[in-house]
């Protein structure tokens, strides 16, 4: 691999928020529901600057599941952006996807994962994938920057081609762990 190709590859993988934004446009997403997370801040900023997107800031994540149901009823595609702690708030509401066969892609930034500092994040962080799978969600894990875009694309395709809840979990090895200034 030439030096320039390696540089290009590294740049592309470091820019995974931009790659997710490009995929949201490629798959004609029109509503973006979110509870803010630091890991998604660049993507959120990009979405807010796009007048074709309805960006809906939620008070709690399960509102986003209901919003996705309404959007699909009305013929629009949507996604939900949230932190892994918010997944716990969504579990009962995900029955809407199962009973109606509604596409519900979720892009989840992980806490309570690789290198976590805050004990409060561990219980839900470690439970995120099992509980999503327990209610029928197809889950992808992205633990390297270059895995993010392919996993997100698979998550969007699974949702809109097969009519079910789907999720990509973006790990803390990609995001970096928040250390509150205690790095050791």
């Amino acid at each position: 691999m030439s030096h320039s190709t390696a540089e290009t590859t590294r740049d592309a993988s470091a820019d995974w928020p931009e790659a997710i934004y490009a995929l949201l446009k490629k798959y004609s997403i029109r509503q973006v529901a979110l509870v803010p997370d630091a890991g998604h801040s660049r993507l959120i900023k990009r979405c807010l600057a796009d007048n074709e997107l309805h960006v809906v800031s939620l008070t709690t994540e399960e509102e986003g599941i209901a919003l996705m149901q309404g959007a699909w009823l009305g013929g629009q595609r949507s996604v939900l952006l949230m932190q892994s702690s918010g997944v716990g708030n969504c579990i009962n509401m995900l029955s809407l996807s199962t009973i109606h066969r509604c596409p519900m892609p979720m892009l989840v930034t992980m806490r309570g994962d690789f290198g976590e500092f805050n004990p409060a994040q561990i219980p839900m962080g470690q439970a995120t994938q099992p509980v999503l799978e327990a209610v029928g969600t197809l889950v992808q894990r992205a633990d390297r920057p270059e895995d993010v875009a392919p996993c997100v694309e698979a998550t969007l395709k699974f949702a809109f081609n097969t009519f079910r809840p789907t999720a990509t979990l973006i790990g803390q090895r990609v995001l970096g762990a928040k250390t509150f200034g205690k790095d050791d």
Partner: protein
Amino acid sequence: MLAESGKIDRRELTRALLADRGGMLVIAGLGAPAWDITAVGDGPQNLPLWGGMGAAAMIGLGLALAQPERRVLVLTGDGEMLMGIGSLATIAHQAPKNLAIVVQDNEHYGETGMQETATRHGTDLVTMAEGAGIKRTMRVTRADEVPPLVQAVRGADGPFFAVVKVDEKSKPLVLPPREGAILQARMREHLLGPEAHLA
């Protein structure tokens, strides 16, 4: 319009809200509101919910944003609205002009044994909606207030939020189809045509 108690009859209220509805789409919260919209006439413009307690208002928001030329009415109960109360802030922030929410407030959880809700003990959902930032609201307790309510629901300057105090007694069950995939697909086909199923 009135039950023996002197309070508004929930099914007569539903009939008034949905009479000559034009293109208005209706999301009904689980339990009695879902039976009520079915009793006055089931069809593809209705989504009666079988679950997802607390979801009705937010489903209405997603639908209203996706279909800005259509009126969307969310008809739900006090218990269901209380469970999703934060969504009133989300809806006020988005401020869709075509969304109306009407709570049939019987001050009880009707499906689980008539336990009292917080609205029985002083919680005022209209005040909560106003506090969330919803500017157009109504409190309805009398039959002569129903025609202005119907007008407001069909107005074009939403979001609109109303509470109607209704008689607490349960009405005869009138169940909608139980297959959610049909309920979703029929509304999508109504709005999008046969292409809905090829999306």
